[in-house]
């Protein structure tokens, strides 16, 4: 049981953030957008559990709503990445070796466009960034990682006996991909999903911080950090709250990924 | 003939478990001693303890004397000076036992220069000589090859060259032929036999295969679950085993004596694991 610590801790942290995001739809202690300069930069109190920011907005309410954007962008981006990357990887893994290598080379072009760069490019082309451009940019940049994982895994599935048996009994390629390859590579893809979520949320925070992702009136953790930075000399503690929440979320997904990997790979379990 | 290696009451533990329950063994100068036993019987642990290559989580007590030097409690630096020079070891997996990124000749030369500080030119000559001595064809080419360009048998010969190039007093062989094809096995064994003779080195030969041990060794020890259950000259042990476990080992190895239609003999037919335990 000691072995599954990362899995449990990761699941708890991620679960916590999900709950925050869900709760924000029904209840926040204050209106997260309500500006009131007379109560700016207050320390935590009974009315404002985590204090107020430079505009007098309730930090706790903004954290709750920020969890939404963070999860939304993370989940949508990873969905884009997985839906495009995994089929490319399977296709390459089921092709002959040199054809597969060529397909992967094309997918690798996306490595040249890290999330941040692509998001900036999209924001520039559109005039401003938005939650949508952030999702698309992060999603596209995670394609090659998914393709790579799916490629390696499906190539090893293809060399197994049950695939040879299926092929010799005349089952078509698409059927093999659906019935044999996909179910067998799902565990590795799942591990990749988890660590990709961690990376996507880091990228989302960076984009909001720079102002090229979700636009400022919507509360995001990255933008909260940017706003807090102005008060770094007099109120350095302002950056602590959003910082901790970003770190908890990413840590949660990373641990979840590591835990899943360990649970799925008996060799690693021995080593750890 | 004096004793080269003298092990007394050697106990080795990992965590709460004890892998070796106090064994005694002696290898005379130039003698060939075989250790036989199933996996987990403690034979490899004994070898690794003699080489000082146990993981640092192992607890070792008792005494291992090599040529009068006490090895138990020796520092890693002290051991390193002996390894490859006074005592060397040949392992089971020739396919993976050579560094894949380094040319074979350089790996052999390293062993020479590490202990004798020979200049590069002289070392190269000696390496080529050694490679041809272990029966590698075209030693010049082999020395310039990377491990992945050689066959398993060739790699094991290269490893034997590494083990013998400094003319050690004791060579420990841990299942050196198990991973090889049967035909290659026989040739490598013969080579090992010749080379040990030529170097006058003593040998501790570990195997689970009685036939292999009887080809190389004069004496044999039978190990079972961390103890030595029987020892003696190889002919005597083979003809007249004292311990039922040994009898079982011998019977299961003699496939030629099995009557068609009868089940294959297993150790349990001979010994229930209780009677006659020391």
């Amino acid at each position, binding site marked *: 049981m000691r072995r599954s610590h990362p899995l449990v801790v990761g699941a708890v942290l991620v679960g916590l953030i999900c709950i925050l995001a869900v709760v924000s739809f029904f209840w926040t202690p204050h209106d997260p957008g309500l500006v009131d300069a007379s109560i700016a930069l207050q320390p935590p109190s009974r009315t404002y559990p985590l204090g107020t920011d430079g505009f007098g907005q309730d930090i706790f309410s903004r954290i709750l709503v920020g969890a939404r954007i963070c999860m939304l962008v993370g989940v949508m981006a990873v969905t884009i990445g997985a839906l495009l990357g995994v089929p490319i990887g399977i296709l390459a893994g089921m092709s002959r070796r040199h054809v597969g290598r060529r397909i992967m080379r094309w997918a690798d072009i996306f490595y040249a466009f890290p999330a941040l760069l692509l998001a*900036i490019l999209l924001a520039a082309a559109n005039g401003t960034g938005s939650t949508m451009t952030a999702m698309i940019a992060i999603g596209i940049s995670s394609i090659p990682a998914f393709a790579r994982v799916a490629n390696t895994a499906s190539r090893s599935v293809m060399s197994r006996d049950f695939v040879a048996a299926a092929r010799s009994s005349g089952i078509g390629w698409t059927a093999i991909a659906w019935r044999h390859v996909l179910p067998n590579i799902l565990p590795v893809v799942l591990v990749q999903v988890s660590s990709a979520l961690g990376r996507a949320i880091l990228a989302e925070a*960076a984009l909001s911080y720079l102002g090229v992702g979700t636009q400022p009136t919507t509360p995001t953790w990255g933008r909260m950090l940017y706003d807090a930075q102005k008060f770094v000399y007099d109120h350095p503690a302002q950056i602590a709250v959003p910082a901790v929440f970003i770190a908890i979320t990413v840590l949660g997904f990373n641990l979840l990924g590591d835990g899943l990997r360990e649970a799925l790979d008996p060799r690693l379990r021995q080593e750890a | 003939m004096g004793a080269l290696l003298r092990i007394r009451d050697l106990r080795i533990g990992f965590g709460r478990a004890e892998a070796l329950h106090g064994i005694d063994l002696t290898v005379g100068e130039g003698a060939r001693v075989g250790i036989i036993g199933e996996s987990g019987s403690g034979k490899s642990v004994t070898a690794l303890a003699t080489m000082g290559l146990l993981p640092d989580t192992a607890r070792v007590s008792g005494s291992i004397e090599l040529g009068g030097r006490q090895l138990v409690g020796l520092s*890693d630096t002290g051991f390193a000076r002996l390894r490859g020079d006074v005592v060397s070891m040949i392992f089971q997996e020739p396919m993976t036992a050579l560094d894949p990124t380094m040319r074979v000749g350089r790996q052999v030369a390293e062993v020479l220069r590490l202990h004798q500080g020979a200049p590069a030119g002289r070392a190269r000559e000696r390496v080529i000589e050694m490679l041809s001595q272990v029966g590698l064809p075209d030693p010049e080419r082999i020395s310039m090859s990377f491990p992945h360009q050689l066959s398993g048998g060739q790699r094991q010969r290269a490893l034997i060259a590494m083990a013998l190039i400094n003319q050690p007093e004791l060579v420990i062989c841990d299942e050196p032929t198990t991973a090889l094809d049967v035909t290659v096995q026989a040739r490598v064994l013969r080579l090992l036999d010749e080379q040990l003779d030529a170097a006058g080195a003593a040998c501790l030969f570990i195997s689970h295969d009685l036939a292999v041990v009887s080809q190389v060794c004069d004496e044999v020890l039978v190990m079972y679950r961390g103890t030595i259950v029987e020892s003696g000259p190889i002919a005597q042990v083979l003809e007249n085993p004292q311990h039922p476990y040994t009898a079982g080992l011998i019977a299961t190895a003699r496939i030629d004596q099995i009557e068609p239609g009868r089940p294959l003999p297993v150790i349990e037919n001979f010994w229930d694991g209780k009677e006659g335990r020391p």
Partner: protein
Amino acid sequence: MRALGAIARQLLSLAGSLLIASFIVFALINALPGDVAATILGPNSDPASIAALRERMGLDRPLLLRYVEWLGGLLTGQPGSSALSGAPIGSIIGPKLAVTAWLATLSMLMGVVLAVPTGLYSAVRRKRADGVIISGLTQVAMAVPHFLVGLVLMIVFAVTLRWLPANGYTPLTSNPLQWLRHLVLPVAAIAVVEAAMLIRYVRSAFIDVLNEDYFRTARAVGWRFVPAVIRHGLRNASLEVITVAGLQLASLFVGSIVVENVFLLPGLGSQLLTAVNQRDLPVVQAIVMIFVAIVLVINTVVDICYHLLDPRVRAQDEETSS
């Protein structure tokens, strides 16, 4: 000779990737729905000035022609001029490139210097308390974005202790000491996070190597532990680490965009953000292309290193080329 052939093939494929990537950058800016001139001038511009800008930037000419011109300009170091000031882009970004290059290379250097010994140490002591603690710390450090580490370092060393400047930059040539003082915090911010990731890879690569039979052979022929690791471990472990480190160096250039903005360093990243906010599309396009080219070149260099280090891969090349 065959190794040279393999390198030539890598370079050729780099040229191909650069061409495709440049087309993607160009197309994203110029071919997405929405007029470039209108985007530059913003939502409240009048049609007459939009038409004038279109005229000045030559936007009425065919897309493909403009792409080829831009490509030619890139190759000769003159990829157009700013839509705002009309200044040549080369002269705008030239001085900024040095700042970013210093930031990225120093961070990588510091990251590697931190990560290799620490990773090795935690691999050797993976079952001891300190090894486990290092693993835990890297896990936490990986969950923190660069800019956040930057903010924390700024609060501690610039705001509270006042040892180092919180922001700004001095060129190396005008005052080396000031230059260093300005770079310490941004470099540390990037290096800490990169090192954390690298430590995990170095650790797992060394755990693999320490369990390898050839490492045991090296010990059995008389190498002490540390020399054995240096002679037979480093090279083999580096094969696993180098790919990751290369990808990281690439991500680190991009990460510098954010950190430059935290510490107000006048580098490429700050210039890029400024250009985005000013809607100066030609400048954005050029800077993004520079970053993309840096990433692709690094990846190619990593591939080539990998080929030179691993004789097995070299052998594969020889098989495929013959």
